[in-house]
């Protein structure tokens, strides 16, 4: 996809010089050195192998070996120190599937991931749209929005937990004063809301960077044509900018799902510890709790295998269902 795409752009690029999204301009750069050849062609195979090696090594150590470990542990029950091990077949899985706590956690994870994905995209989209229309202090505006991304998840989690702590948190006090019985220790919805907001806040910046780039890449000529036809900014946004940014949005949907499923761990650990009563205990946090806190390695491994299957399935479905509707051509 990127290669043919790049070639296509090069062919027509010189005349109109549209501002290209980052990915495409990169692939066109790679292509220029060996005109007429595929972008991925190398004359010296060892160079290609050398360039690939770091990525392959990372995959080997951080994906294939852990996957193998998880698979080998998922069908056994084992003493944490490895002294005794019993093969139990599918028992770890059947126990999980018959456990209401695990089902609750799965439903919660789905809810959390979907809400987080949509909320992040919408807010980032609004901010990016506004960026196009902010004239004065644009750099400051961008800087402020990007700040949360520079804060470590654990630290931002502690801050959120403290600010909204019902006993000592200043923002919780404000909520109490205006009549909300805010208490994430006792009201599962409050806890879920708090981690969702914290997770969205942390991830908006990521989506924002990509969306700003994508919106800027919309050719000025098209926008001007739409303006001449009488479309106002909001209309131009929905009928021109959004469809043209569709590939980026699709990419962000996938990334947001990955983020929601796997990377919100630090925030949950610091904001709620998965509580109260498991109401914010997402699947990935449960893997950590059961494996690293409770040392139930068999069940934890089985859970990570399930999680891996879910991630593969989701990505596949997204590519099948959504990508077909995405038009990569400008």
């Amino acid at each position: 996809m990127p290669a043919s795409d790049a070639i296509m752009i090069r062919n027509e690029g010189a005349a109109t010089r549209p501002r290209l999204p980052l990915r495409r301009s990169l692939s066109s750069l790679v292509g220029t050195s060996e005109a007429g050849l595929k972008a991925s062609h190398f004359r010296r195979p060892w160079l290609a192998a050398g360039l690939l090696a770091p990525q392959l090594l990372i995959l080997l150590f951080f994906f294939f070996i852990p996957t193998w470990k998880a698979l080998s542990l998922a069908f056994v029950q084992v003493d944490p120190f490895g002294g005794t091990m019993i093969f139990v077949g599918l028992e770890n899985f059947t126990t999980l599937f018959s456990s209401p706590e695990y089902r609750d956690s799965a439903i919660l994870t789905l809810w959390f991931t979907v809400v987080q994905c949509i909320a992040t995209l919408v807010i980032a989209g609004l901010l990016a749209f506004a960026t196009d229309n902010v004239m004065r202090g644009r750099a400051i505006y961008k800087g402020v929005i990007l700040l949360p991304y520079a804060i470590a998840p654990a630290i931002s989690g502690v801050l959120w937990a403290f600010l909204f702590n019902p006993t000592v948190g200043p923002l919780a006090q404000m909520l109490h004063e205006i009549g909300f019985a805010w208490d994430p220790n006792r009201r599962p919805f409050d806890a879920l809301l708090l981690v969702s907001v914290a997770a969205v806040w942390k991830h908006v910046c990521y989506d924002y960077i990509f969306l700003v780039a994508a919106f800027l890449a919309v050719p000025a000529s098209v926008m001007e044509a739409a303006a001449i036809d009488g479309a106002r900014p909001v209309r131009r946004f929905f009928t021109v900018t959004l469809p043209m940014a569709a590939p980026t949005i699709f990419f962000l949907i996938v990334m947001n799902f990955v983020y929601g499923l796997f990377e919100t761990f630090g925030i949950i650990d610091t904001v709620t510890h998965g509580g109260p009563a498991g109401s914010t205990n997402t699947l990935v946090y449960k893997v950590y709790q059961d494996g690293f806190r409770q040392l139930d390695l068999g069940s934890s491994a089985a859970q990570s295998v399930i999680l891996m299957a879910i991630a593969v399935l989701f990505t596949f479905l997204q590519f099948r269902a959504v990508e077909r509707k995405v038009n990569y051509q400008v």
Partner: protein
Amino acid sequence: MASTYVKSITGLLAAGALLMGATGATAADRVKIEWWYAISGKLGDTVQKLISDFNKSQDKYEVVGTFKGNYEETMAAMVAAYRVNQQPAILQSAERGFMTMLNSGAVIPVDQLMAKQGYKIDWSDFVKPVAGFYIVNGKPAALPFNSSTPILWYNADAFNAAGFDAPSDTWQGLEKQLYALKEKKVTDCPMALPGDFQWSLIENYSAINNYPFATKANGYGGLDTEFVYNKTGVVGQVARLKKWVDDGVLKIAGQGVAPISLFTSGTCATIINSTASHSGVEADAKFKWSAAVMPHEEGVDVKNGTIGGASLWAVKGKSEEVQAGVAAFFNFVAQPATQEWWSKATGYVPVTNAAYQKMKTDGYFKDHPTREIAIEQLSRGEPTDNSRGFRFGNHNQSTAILIEEIQAVWTGKKTPQEALDSSVKRGNEILRQYEKLHAGK
């Protein structure tokens, strides 16, 4: 291009080798003994002081202490390290991980180690509730180190303002006092819920009131033990706590703030927390504070509470000279003088009778009466099968389940009975899983 990379990489490697060689040379004259511990803050500072005192006391060994996170995190680090043969020589492990360590096959029983290295430790001198927990079949499995028990801390100014001299010794009496504190507007937070409430308000509550927590003498009698706390006074206790939470008498600190700091800051008037909070409370509380034994139910035959805290385990797979160093360090820790200093500096109970008697005859408890409460609470009544302690395989797991289920009571999702029934059922599955894995141990 490539050759400059190669050069700089070999340069880096050489520099690294030099560095390693350098540190290796300075440490060569002393045998390094790695110790992973799990207590932090002021207690962590005291651990470092203990280590440097030991290192100064002799010139053969150097104990290197590393804080590895809380008890669970330290245990997880140990498990990961052990599997790749990178384990420390000494591990501090909490009472909840006792069975895991005992049956791990990764430890050397402490009496074996000491006997082999030629040290004599009078194991009968350890105070009863501590010895009762760590001695298995007449032999100590680990060296009792920091032992604690939960006591009732209270803000004496607040109690006086509400017209009380001291907290009542029954839950019924305490309830009236806490509600009075709120009604008289002395405080908006009569009591804070401790982070380890399952240890103090459930397990210790069960022991003190002589309720069975599980069959087979709470697990002392075998791995086929089963939880039964859903059929005892614990149900009423959870219902009481739920009522207090609903009425704003008992506050849950939640994430982002340590429950004990709600007490030391004066926000909450009482908290039932470990006696090891002494060093922190003494330093931070700017009001007249005191402490008392944990309350009991009206009309019960009051028993001893159970210990918490941790012990030191000698880990397998270390060279003979490292083991000798571990034994030397253990011997140093077990000295009455060290015990006394440690107890005074931290608030943990002195674990040997020698240290306790010395503190007593020196009049230490006259000047620091709250320091003796824990010992008093640990030695009330003649211990029964219900109060001796808890020995459950994978106790961390069943504890996590108990906490989760009680949180479902706070949220109103379950009644106390429903929650405890479910907790017992899930907990028993954990016990059976452990039994299956460790059959014959």
